[in-house]
């Protein structure tokens, strides 16, 4: 009986490559597995050229815990700030809506909170869900505190993700992975050699060196040197019609950071701002027909770089003995906040499916199945915004023309009928987050859940008012976000 693969070679470093290296080094080094990372250095290409900063979901903290990392150390290494949710402006002309993390209000039996509000006559068109959420109110007031571990405390309802600079975060992961026993190799993987059975036998470096291994991990970003370059696994494109370019930049910025990622729709595209500590990361996704690269660079300022925007995913990211991660496997739309999530979940899922040195077929099939469900939810979460925005500019009318995936079509039909959200176990987002996204996009269901009619109206109204009051009054008493960041980073801006 064979054991784990003797040598795992990770082609490419960056956040995806080093997260993977760290996870496997921690678990497999004690078994004597050799883990090498061929890291060309320079800019992080593993999550795509335009991912200069990461805006994560709250799950990042569980990932850090599972990888033996410390959230605050990561923030210090990556000019990190806290993220309490997302804000969307202009997706409905003239509108702004916050999608808060954590709990919003409270369900009553099977009746979801947004259904309670709609029963009281709330309309998605102007519903301010954030007013019923501690995270939402705190974000609005520029305040922050970590959630309380006591589930009885209202403070436990807050949840947060992180804004992290990709480069610094990659360095932090690299240090941790090296400490866990991963071996760095200088240079860039260009290609690979294949054996008669189709499996890869050795990675070929740009300088001609050959590195044999048992399992090859493709973290070469959009270049996809192995999974596409050698194995030819096809790409499934998700781009919204017309939105074909992306510009990105990080600029120094000493304003106190907002604890939200901002998504602002404009006539020829939309802009995403992820505030960092002492810096600001911005992306502009636009249509080349309605805006040229020079105009995009002028908008973002500084030294913005522009590239083609082609979100999508690989059909079978684990093929033979090659596993693609990061942008080589899936390039999610920034709206889905999924880059970090997918990088970490790929590594953690692989650990549940470490193959024999000579096997991997059944494991790959299971891995790919969950990958499809996860990335499918990321695709749908972003597509929801493109499909339901109501802007009248040409770019946006075009963007609405895409067909939703069958799953998203089902999701939308259920929501539009009665505000219901289907459950999905392998997806990235929970029910509450989907509901908040629909409401942020101002999608009004035809009616609410009839079960909500069984709740006595006066008592329900009072309860909702209490929650709103509790959120506002608790948020006011939290420390300032800027002060909390100064404490983390040891310096006030």
């Amino acid at each position, binding site marked *: 009986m064979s054991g784990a693969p003797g040598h795992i070679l990770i082609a490419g470093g960056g956040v995806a490559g080093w997260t993977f290296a760290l996870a496997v080094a921690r678990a497999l080094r004690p*078994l004597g597995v050799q883990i090498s990372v061929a890291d060309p250095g320079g800019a992080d290409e593993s999550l795509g050229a335009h991912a200069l900063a990461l805006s994560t979901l709250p799950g990042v903290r569980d990932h850090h815990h599972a990888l033996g990392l410390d959230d605050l150390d990561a923030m210090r290494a990556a000019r990190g700030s806290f993220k309490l949710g997302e804000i969307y402006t202009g997706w409905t002309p003239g509108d702004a809506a916050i999608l808060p993390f954590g709990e919003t209000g409270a369900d009553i039996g099977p009746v979801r909170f947004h259904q309670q509000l709609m029963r009281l006559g709330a309309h998605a068109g102007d519903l301010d869900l954030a007013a019923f959420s501690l995270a939402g109110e705190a974000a609005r007031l520029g305040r922050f505190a970590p959630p309380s571990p006591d589930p009885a405390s209202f403070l436990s309802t807050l949840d947060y993700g992180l804004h992290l600079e990709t480069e610094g975060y990659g360095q932090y992961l690299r240090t941790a992975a090296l400490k866990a026993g991963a071996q760095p190799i200088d240079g860039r993987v260009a290609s690979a050699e294949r054996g008669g059975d189709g499996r890869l036998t050795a990675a070929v470096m740009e300088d001609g060196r050959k590195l044999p291994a048992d399992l090859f991990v493709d973290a070469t970003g959009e270049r996809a040197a192995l999974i596409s370059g050698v194995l030819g696994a096809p790409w499934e494109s998700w781009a919204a019609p017309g939105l074909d370019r992306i510009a990105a930049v990080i600029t120094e910025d000493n304003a106190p950071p907002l604890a939200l990622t901002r998504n602002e729709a404009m006539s020829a595209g939309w802009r995403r701002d992820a505030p960092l500590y002492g810096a600001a990361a911005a992306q502009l996704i636009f249509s080349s027909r309605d805006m040229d690269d020079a105009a995009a660079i002028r908008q973002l300022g500084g030294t913005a770089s522009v590239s083609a925007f082609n979100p999508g995913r690989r059909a079978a990211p684990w093929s033979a003995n090659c596993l693609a991660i990061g942008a080589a496997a899936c390039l999610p739309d920034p709206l889905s906040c999924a880059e970090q999530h997918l990088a970490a979940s790929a590594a953690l899922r692989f650990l549940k499916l470490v193959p024999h040195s000579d096997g991997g077929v059944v494991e790959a*099939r299971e891995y790919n199945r969950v990958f499809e469900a996860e990335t499918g939810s990321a695709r749908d979460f972003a597509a929801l915004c493109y499909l339901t925005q109501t802007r009248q500019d040409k770019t946006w009318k075009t963007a609405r023309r895409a067909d939703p995936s069958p799953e998203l079509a089902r999701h939308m039909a259920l929501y539009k009928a009665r505000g219901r959200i289907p459950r999905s176990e392998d997806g990235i987002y929970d029910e509450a987050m989907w509901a908040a996204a629909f409401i942020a996009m101002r999608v009004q269901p035809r009616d609410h859940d009839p079960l909500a009619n069984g709740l006595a109206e006066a008592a329900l109204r009072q309860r909702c008012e209490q929650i709103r009051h509790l959120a506002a009054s608790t948020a006011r008493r939290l420390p300032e976000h800027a002060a909390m960041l100064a404490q983390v980073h040891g310096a006030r801006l």
Partner: protein
Amino acid sequence: MTPPPIRDVVIVGGGTAGWMAAAALSRLIANGVTRITLVESEEIGIVGVGEATIPPIRQFNEVLGIDEREFLKATQGSYKLGIEFVDWTRPGHRYIHPFGPFGADMNAVKFHQYWLKLHRLGKATDFAEYNLCATAAYQNRFGAIAAQYRSPLTQLHWAYHFDASLYARFLRRYSEARGVTRQEGKIIQVHQRSEDGFIASVELESGQRIEGELFIDCSGFRGLLIEQTLKAGYEDWTHWLPCDRAVAVPCAHGEGEFTPYTRSTAREAGWQWRIPLQHRIGNGYVYSSQFISDDEAASTLMANLDGEALADPRPLRFVTGRRKKAWVKNCIALGLASGFLEPLESTSIHLIQSGIARLLALFPDSGFSNVEIDEYNRLTDQQIAAIRDFIILHYHANERAGSPLWDSCRHMDIPETLARKLALFRNRGRLFRYEDELFAESSWYAVLLGQNVMPQGHDPLADAAPVEDAAAALEEVRAMVRGAAASMPLHADFINQHCRASTAA
């Protein structure tokens, strides 16, 4: 414009399914608009023969605000910690599928992976010894655990055995007290709306018509509304689940212990259940008519009882499978009307319960949008297919060579979803729970390992810990579980003290 809410819900059939639905939906009455009527006839018997359940039943009762001990007193009920499978793997073999987990994951590696590794090295004992419910079950114990053994490793999970007709009666009292109207009468005709075929009313022998907007078909196998009226269609699964008949009989308690678990014993042409209640034991032989005659089946059953038979053996016929659509137009089928998986893993009542929960989550208005109907049917299909796979596993993974029914099950084509699960498990003992799947990973481990589906190897991550450390950790679990089980009272004593039914029913 939103269509108005549903005013009249009519439940057809008053067995376990009908009264569970009535009890759960009775909360709708609070909106001041909805009325609920249940039509049943005393002339039509119900199929309840002594039912075994799984732990989610506790949530159902809890949501209704039912006190556990009152409920057990009213239904001659007992506690259930799992199911023992005798002779399934091969004659002379037995294993238990207990509720709750085996040990606990260590270093992010599943507990059973360490067990697989150490068992091969002769350093681990029987898998059941690492599960509290299994250990307590084999000692016939149930109740509180002594303080020094309480830990995350010793969380007790339980369900019940009870008399289903008494449970229906209990829920009837509950429902009527909350405003549900019971209408006695036999339905002789179903009337449909001419414009769209929706059910408009059911007509009783007396000539009375009960009108409604939403109909819940709990009429049993025949599916009076869903099939006979709306022609939903039935998907036959006999090629996977070959049994098509059962014969049931209650008997007196014999000399044996009052077991806190169900027993299922494999027989030549099927299997026999044994469900201990307070006042008697429910028994039945589920078989394939292709391999044994009705008379032979009945005499096999009668020869294998704990005590004196308390009635004549009662025959039942069924076709395993599912209704192609559980919700058609304004009619939702629950219970046997929606399909039949055999009672091997005690899922019948659970399927009713989850159908009700789905209905509440997707409750329609008088406009009956297809969006909700489609979603209900999609979720129902997904759930029943997952349970079907789990039950097929019991038949398929057998070593009972030379016995025609069992030989054919061992060699049959199994659903692709199950084949994928088995391949992954056979390889390295891995298992992933699919979306919305009822049975937890620990249930699959119990049955897979119980029926001797041994993986070729274990998860390489289990090799990261030194063998001695892993062995010590396993031994710690076993000692904790053994201590906790031994500190519990006997099941019989616990029942006598807390939930003894006052009169023999």
